[in-house]
């Protein structure tokens, strides 16, 4: 502090030389002092600042990990936790012409050169279109979903105008698989499928961290789509639909509608295929209704003796003649009716059963309302209200006059084989003990009898092509002519195979349907279900059975010995 004590004045009565010298020294000392003080003040300020940062200012804002990892939209998985749809942090490639901000052109290189370099990174890029977009100077997406390594390579081009904003995208790892079940997301809103049905749940901040498990099994779904695709191509069908349903819980294990669309990239063509044939399209499903009719008749006591023979000759009624596709002899008993799929005898059975009872059973099976499923697209059946005339009941008996979705049929078959309980179908994974309440439609004894009859059709009848060894498949074919202008078309069919397995203790119902199959070499130039839908089921069940916990066993089967004598030497 002594250095600061500068003499106030310099005595003038001294030797001038000394005086000048002293003054100079003093001035220098003063300057030094000032500079030192400035440095000291600076150091003190810095120290203060450090102390301020360390002591007073709050620590770096703590981000919650849970919040950072919460997806923008919840994940959808299959029943085993395989992700089917997830929020996917991806980069987008955005062209921002204003990024340079120097009044010059937006790009350093020419638009063509930049497009060529982008093409080197993304081989599927439309180079010409991108070059035109870059030259036009309008901001816009050049590409969505850019992988991180590609994003780095884009950065290396060194164009400021090429921006890579981080976007949360919806990604479907399985591609087109289960597209109709999942739907897609457009502008943050779920469209069709479970994306739409679960929209609130998937976007709810409180619950979207937890993935939603569907009842679908990805492996079964993959196998179903693979076999449907193969079957559809081999018979040149315009479409196909398939469903695998758990008969005890009503869970849908797989649901496919072909042609499919790609939820990762829904374009104009994809939008045309969004329509779900399984839950939304209604068909007259033909002969697959016959087992339901017979079950209703057995249940009501209209059929007590399976060996009773009914006339099988053309049956004229009300100006209309019910015929079979080919003559089946003078008379048939009930097992033979199902094995040969006779319209005439089914009509006689409906006549014995009575129209009101027939209508009641069909209504109990849910054929008079939209199918029970979470999907928003559910077709309303073509269902005649009021009292049914005799002819209507008879045609319904063999699957005409009522049009339902394949899902309706699956649900009805499940009720027929599971002991008689109809249950609403669901696409959500059902925890054990939380199975939806059902209603009894058939007696357990009726169900047991129907299991035998369905198995007989697969062993001796039209379903032989579906009889996968060891899986005890039972099922019924149905080949219905499609209605069109001026009545039914004989050559455009909807061929269906409705199956259940294993018939000694049914666990799954499988429905396979082809829309307008053609006679090809693969189907022995036949259009009927026995030659296209049934073999597809026969190939599908060995693939999905072990995955679903049903192991093939050739030493087990339903006891058919009491019915075998009724069908003669069919085998």
């Amino acid at each position, binding site marked *: 502090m002594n250095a600061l004590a500068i003499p106030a004045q310099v005595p003038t009565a001294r030797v001038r030389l000394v005086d000048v010298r002293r003054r100079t020294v003093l001035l220098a000392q003063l300057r030094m002092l000032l500079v030192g003080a400035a440095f000291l003040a600076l150091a003190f300020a810095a120290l203060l600042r450090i102390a301020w940062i*360390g002591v007073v200012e709050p*620590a770096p804002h703590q981000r919650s990990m849970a919040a950072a*990892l919460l997806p923008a939209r919840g994940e959808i998985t299959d029943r085993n936790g395989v992700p089917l749809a997830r929020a996917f942090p991806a980069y987008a490639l955005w062209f921002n012409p204003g990024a340079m901000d120097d009044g010059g052109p937006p790009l350093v290189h020419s638009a063509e050169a930049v497009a060529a370099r982008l093409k080197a990174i993304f081989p599927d890029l439309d180079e010409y279109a991108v070059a035109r977009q870059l030259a036009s100077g309008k901001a816009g997406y050049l590409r969505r979903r850019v992988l991180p390594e590609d994003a780095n390579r884009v950065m290396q081009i060194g164009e400021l105008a090429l921006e890579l904003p981080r976007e949360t995208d919806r990604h479907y790892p*399985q591609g087109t698989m289960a597209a109709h079940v999942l739907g897609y997301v457009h502008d943050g809103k779920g469209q069709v499928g479970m994306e739409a049905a679960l929209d609130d749940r998937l976007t709810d901040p409180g619950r979207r961290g937890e993935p939603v498990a569907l009842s679908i099994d*990805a492996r079964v779904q*993959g196998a179903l789509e693979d076999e449907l695709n193969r079957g559809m191509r081999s018979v040149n069908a315009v479409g196909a639909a398939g469903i695998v349903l758990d008969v005890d819980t009503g869970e849908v294990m797989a649901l496919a509608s072909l042609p499919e669309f790609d939820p990762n990239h829904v374009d104009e063509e994809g939008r045309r295929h969004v329509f779900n044939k399984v839950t939304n399209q209604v068909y007259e499903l033909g002969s697959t209704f016959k087992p339901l009719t017979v079950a209703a008749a057995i249940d009501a006591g209209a059929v007590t003796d399976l060996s009773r023979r009914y006339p099988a000759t053309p049956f004229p009624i009300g100006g209309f003649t019910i015929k079979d596709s080919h003559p089946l002899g003078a008379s048939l008993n009930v097992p033979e009716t199902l094995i040969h799929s006779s319209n005439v005898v089914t009509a006689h059975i409906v006549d014995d059963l009575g129209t009101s009872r027939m209508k009641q059973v069909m209504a109990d099976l849910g054929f008079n309302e939209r199918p029970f499923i979470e999907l928003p697209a559910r077709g309303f059946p073509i269902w005649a209200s009021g009292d049914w005339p005799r002819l209507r009941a008879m045609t319904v008996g063999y699957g005409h006059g009522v049009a339902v979705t394949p899902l309706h049929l699956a649900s009805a078959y499940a009720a027929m084989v599971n002991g008689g309980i109809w249950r609403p179908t669901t696409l959500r994974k059902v925890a054990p003990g939380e199975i939806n309440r059902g209603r009894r439609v058939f007696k357990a004894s009726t169900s047991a009898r129907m299991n035998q009859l369905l198995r007989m059709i697969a062993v001796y009848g039209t379903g032989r092509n579906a009889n996968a060894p060891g899986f005890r498949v039972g099922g019924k074919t149905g080949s219905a002519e499609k209605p069109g202008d001026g009545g039914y078309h004989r050559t455009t069919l909807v061929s269906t195979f409705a199956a259940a397995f294993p018939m000694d203790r049914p666990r799954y119902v499988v429905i396979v349907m082809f829309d307008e199959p053609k006679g090809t070499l693969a189907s022995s130039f036949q259009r009927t279900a026995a030659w296209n839908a049934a073999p597809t089921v026969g190939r599908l069940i060995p693939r999905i059975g072990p995955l679903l916990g049903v192991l*093939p066993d*050739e030493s087990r089967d339903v006891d058919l010995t009491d019915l075998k004598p009724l069908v003669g030497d069919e085998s």
Partner: protein
Amino acid sequence: MTAPNLASGSRLRRIGWIAALATCTALYLMLHLKVHAVRSEVVRAERQIVALEQQKLLLETEFETRSNQLQLAAWNRVDFGYTAPSAAQFLANERQLASFGSPRAAGAPEPIRVAGGAGSEAPAFPRLVAPLAGEPLDEALIEPERALADPRLAENGGAMRIPLGAVIGSAAR
């Protein structure tokens, strides 16, 4: 004589207080800085975890995408040609396995029978050991398979029902 002593004593005490206060303040400051430093480290670690989780998600999604069912089916169709196993490739139970054994041929020597019981000299059932490490296998590893076998044997009525979770559970372990 006492006054200067008192004065020096109180001064000493004052200096002591000031020193104690200064020490405490310094210690407090050090602790405060340390806490801040640790907190920053925690935040950084959290950020790292988030980044790694996101990377994991990315890689997992990529793996799922590359191994999707359509792709696997396409590979199988072109390269591998695997088909679903037939009924003959499955075994329902130990009894069926035993049925594959051939009966003793005529004239073959009598099998040597060892007297059973607690005090017998028959060796204990060999323990399963890991082939490389040579350590005994964990019992829990074998457990699901046993649990799997039991319900099959127990249910003699209908079809075999294997709990779906059993296979997956053992594979995950």
